[in-house]
């Protein structure tokens, strides 16, 4: 693959992200922070939820922020560039394989997802106030997990961005992204679904479950979580599936 062209495209995306920095920041932070404030501050302080919940919520919020920003940053530009503005043509005509252009999009999305995660941790911590106890005992595990979740987010973005029509963006969010978030074990650990045995099994097809449970397993290991082998295995699996399918869809979109 042509590294120069690849890096130039990455530079282009970074340049555009820098230009839209404030918008991006609000887009990434605002919604998770509202959630953090309502669930982590208001409900815990008013005594509706035990203060322990704060530590349990934070890993889910990290997963949520990373997924939203990764999916959004890859899918939205692709939908409009392929269908409407055709801006992507310039990069498809650059001296690089078609898949190279798609992988660049994924890498750019991963970087945005990682940045979102890095911004959310301290901000959420501040918003929730005292009582959050995170463990950083397994930094390498945490790093690998973050990379896998970032790749998952960007790959899902690639699939959606190359499969969804411009008129269906709203539908995509209400039918795909919203259930993914609400059944993604961001607000509750997977084990708490035990009273709903069927639901507990069905949500296992939702890749976000492994992102939330994964962060829970490294940051707050004292809470119940899925076994680590299951978490890492499933994340590898979903990353590979979504990436492979996304690349295929991208090629189909790119070549007439």
């Amino acid at each position: 693959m042509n590294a120069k062209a690849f890096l130039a495209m990455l530079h282009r995306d970074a340049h555009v992200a820098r230009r839209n920095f404030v918008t991006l920041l609000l887009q990434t932070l605002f919604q998770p922070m509202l959630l953090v404030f309502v669930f982590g501050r208001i409900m815990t302080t008013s005594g509706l939820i035990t203060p322990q919940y704060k530590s349990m919520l934070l890993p889910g919020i990290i997963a949520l922020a990373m997924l939203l920003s990764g999916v959004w940053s890859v899918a939205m530009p692709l939908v409009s560039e392929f269908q409407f503005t055709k801006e992507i043509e310039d990069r498809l005509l650059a001296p690089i394989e078609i898949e190279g252009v798609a992988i660049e999009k994924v890498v750019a999305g991963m970087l945005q997802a990682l940045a979102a995660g890095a911004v959310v941790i301290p901000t959420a911590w501040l918003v929730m106030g005292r009582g959050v106890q995170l463990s950083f005992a397994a930094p390498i595990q945490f790093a690998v997990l973050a990379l896998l979740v970032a790749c998952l987010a960007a790959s899902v973005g690639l699939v959606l961005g190359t499969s969804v029509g411009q008129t269906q963006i709203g539908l995509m969010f209400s039918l795909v992204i919203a259930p993914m978030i609400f059944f993604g074990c961001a607000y509750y650990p997977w084990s708490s679904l035990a009273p709903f045995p069927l639901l507990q099994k069905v949500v296992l097809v939702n890749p976000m479950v492994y992102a939330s449970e994964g962060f829970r397993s490294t940051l707050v290991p004292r809470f119940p979580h899925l076994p680590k082998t299951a978490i890492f295995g499933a994340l590898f699996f979903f990353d590979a599936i979504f990436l492979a399918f996304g690349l295929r869809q991208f090629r189909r979109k790119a070549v007439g």
Partner: protein
Amino acid sequence: MAIGIRAEDLRKTYTSPPPTAAATRGVGLRLGRRGPRQKYEVKALDGLSLDVAPGEIFGLLGPNGAGKSTTVGVLTTRVRPTSGRAWIGSYDVWNDGVAVKRLIGVVPQRPNLDLALTGREILTFHGAYFGVPAAERARRAQELLERFQLTDRADQLTLGYSGGMLQRLSIARALMHEPQVLFLDEPSAGLDPQTRLLLWDLVRRDNERGTTILLTTHNMEEADALCSRVAIVDHGRVIAIGTPQELKSSIPGGYLVRLHLAGAPPDLLARFESLPGVTEVRSPGNGGVDLYADRGGALVPEIARLSSEAGVEIRDVRISEPSLENLFLHHTGRSLRD
């Protein structure tokens, strides 16, 4: 060294219909059974072959939907042909796509400029994709912006650009990496006459530096003014090829007298045909009569005499000099603008 373009028996059949309003309305619930699925098949290219010599300005001339843009799509790696092969220089377009993309510059029919970047950035990032070093990128971008009279708005996003400015910027972008083969798909569509002349001048100058140029157009004047050779394309096939002069002299007689009569009785047509200098008479129907001849206006008095003798009223007479437009009409029976 200039390089050429070659295409051999290109075919492209689309089997899935383009999106329709019904297909894009979101999620539609279909109740009951649908009728049998209609077979959709459109032949965009039907055995098109081309050989463009190095350093040539070659024109693809044809009406909308003739297959010109699909041809450009195939030659620029953007459309996969159903069958057939194509080469840019010695590189197979389909198997050596990356090498081909390095050699070509493409100006699309509709601007596809990067909306998140300023005019200057569009040029410099494009250069970067092609590995042009940073200092050289900046220098070339400035030079092109000046050449295309875009310096005033160079550091603004392109949202506010006029159609002509977008088109000029598209061409400047295609030239940023100094391609050896330049594709221009309907380059002057929507340009004002002044910008069109500027564009022609730029195309010629670029060609003088050794760039091979392939352009598509449905504008005769443009093909005539710019191209060293022209291929006339219709229904995905080349129906005539040659220099504009050769093509024009291939029309029987060269001149075309188009009549619109109240009726076209066969004996009148036969008498037209026997007029001195008339080589062919065609009657497409509805009182239309086309006379191919070696003279134009000089024929009119005789036509008028024959018609009045036959008691047929002449409603309209149009005379055209030898042109590619007439050639197209001669080969296809249709006008370019149909």
